[in-house]
């Protein structure tokens, strides 16, 4: 979790808003540092992790549920499955919809019977959505899947969603454009990491654009969009205004 990013977003793990969809998008750069930020942000918010964030511990406690897409994809082909498999669409010639995948997600989010609650509110993190397109699913089918996840996670369970979509920048990739724009319109917050237009730089790794959408109350004072440049270091990311890198000043 990057404290500087929390400051830019004006949020902390213990008072994060609920029922929100955040879109992470990267273009000409690697946006996985944003995924790591939100993963540790929400695990910290669960209040059960004492020192740092330990993913293994979280997984053992049932707070973190992984769908290992790659392993499941292979299982679909080489093992007989009785009940519908989440990645059933891989076997079907006409990948109609992602209903089995959604049902897997919904099952995973159900509170465990008995015992203490696993979390205060659930968080669904998707890394990354563009993979579904390359597996042959249509953009509208993926958007429908996200719609149903949003209805269940954000509205019904008052949880949050974080989705990573790559922006290939390919003008001819219409499906990816529809997917990216479709999820953008469903999002409350968009974080877009872009490589610098002028190329690589040792001291400035990229630019981050933050766009707030769908505010519950129209806030005239708060900026709708902000742009910062950043540098990724060993254990943190530092943000600064454009042209204000410490290396330059």
């Amino acid at each position, binding site marked *: 979790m990057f404290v500087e990013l929390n400051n830019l977003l004006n949020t902390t793990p213990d008072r994060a808003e609920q029922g929100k969809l955040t879109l992470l998008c990267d273009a000409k750069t690697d946006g996985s540092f944003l995924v790591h930020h939100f993963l540790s942000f929400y695990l910290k918010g669960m209040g059960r992790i004492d020192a740092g964030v330990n993913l293994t511990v979280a997984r053992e406690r049932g707070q973190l549920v992984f769908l290992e897409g790659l392993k499941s994809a292979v299982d679909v082909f080489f093992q007989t499955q009785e009940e519908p498999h989440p990645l059933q669409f891989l076997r079907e010639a006409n990948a109609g*919809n992602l*209903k089995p995948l*959604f049902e897997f997600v919904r099952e995973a989010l159900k509170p465990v019977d008995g015992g203490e609650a696993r979390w205060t509110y659930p968080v669904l993190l998707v890394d990354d959505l563009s993979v579904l397109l390359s597996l042959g699913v249509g953009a*509208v089918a993926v*958007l*429908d899947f996200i*719609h*149903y996840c949003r*209805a269940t996670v954000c*509205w019904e369970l008052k949880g949050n969603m974080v989705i990573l979509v790559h922006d290939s920048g390919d003008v001819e990739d219409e499906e990816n*454009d*529809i997917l990216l*724009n*479709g999820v*953008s*319109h*469903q999002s409350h917050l*968009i974080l877009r990491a872009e490589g610098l237009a002028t190329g690589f730089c040792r001291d400035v790794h990229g630019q981050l654009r933050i*766009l707030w*959408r*769908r505010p*519950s*109350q*129209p806030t005239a004072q708060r*900026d*709708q*969009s902000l742009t910062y440049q950043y540098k990724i270091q060993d254990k943190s990311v530092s943000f600064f205004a454009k042209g204000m890198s410490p290396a330059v000043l």
Partner: protein
Amino acid sequence: MLDSLLSLGGLVLLRDSVEWEGRSLLKALVKKSALCGEQVHILGCEVSEEEFREGFDSDINNRLVYHDFFRDPLNWSKTEEALPGGPLGALRAICKRTDPGPVTIALDSLSWLLLHLPCTTLCQALHAVSHQDSCPGDSSPVGKVSVLGLLHEELHGPGPVGALSSLAQTEVTLGGTKGQASAHILCRRPRQRPTDQVDPTTHLTFNLHLSKKEREARDSLILPFQFSSEKQQALLRPRPGQATSHIFYEPDAYDDLDQEDPDDDLDI
């Protein structure tokens, strides 16, 4: 501004983008219609009912009928709660109403409908709905129908957007620069229907009418510079005796006529 957007009726197309969202304008128009006493139906495909109703007070909320296509639009839960016929079925059911008052239908969003239905089907349904009140000779008077459609521009190609644009009476495109939002409004005035021709020659202080004889004389008149076949023949075959022309001049007392040619002394 909101009044002018709603005054023409028919389809009002709200085009928004990721950066400049249009749902707040849609809600403002819904609120305006409700305050005018209209019944407002919302086909909600993108946000929950709670989220849509947020910000409206109870007076307005009581006039809003929300058709929920957010929770389970594709009937994945296979329960009996699914609304039959989907969003288009709901749209047609609203229009079959017997209540003659004006009604406003908000489509949130047209983009969702366009992604899940064929463009032609959607356009035909919208045309039928927004032109419902313009059929003359219909015995049951139906009130004005306004359809507010929210369209996310980036999701569709120019073909479908153009088709919806041509159906719209009013089109609002949202944009802005440097944090300041703006709206570009395009109104299509309805074509003037041809009314009974009014005779412009009545009620004048002078007479513009022609009698039958006058009309015949006018029609047979040959204009002086009109090239006719007779004129053509006359020019091609000049008649003898008309080659030269005579000038008849009567000098008066003050004329000083010299019969000599003044150019005689020129030695050319």
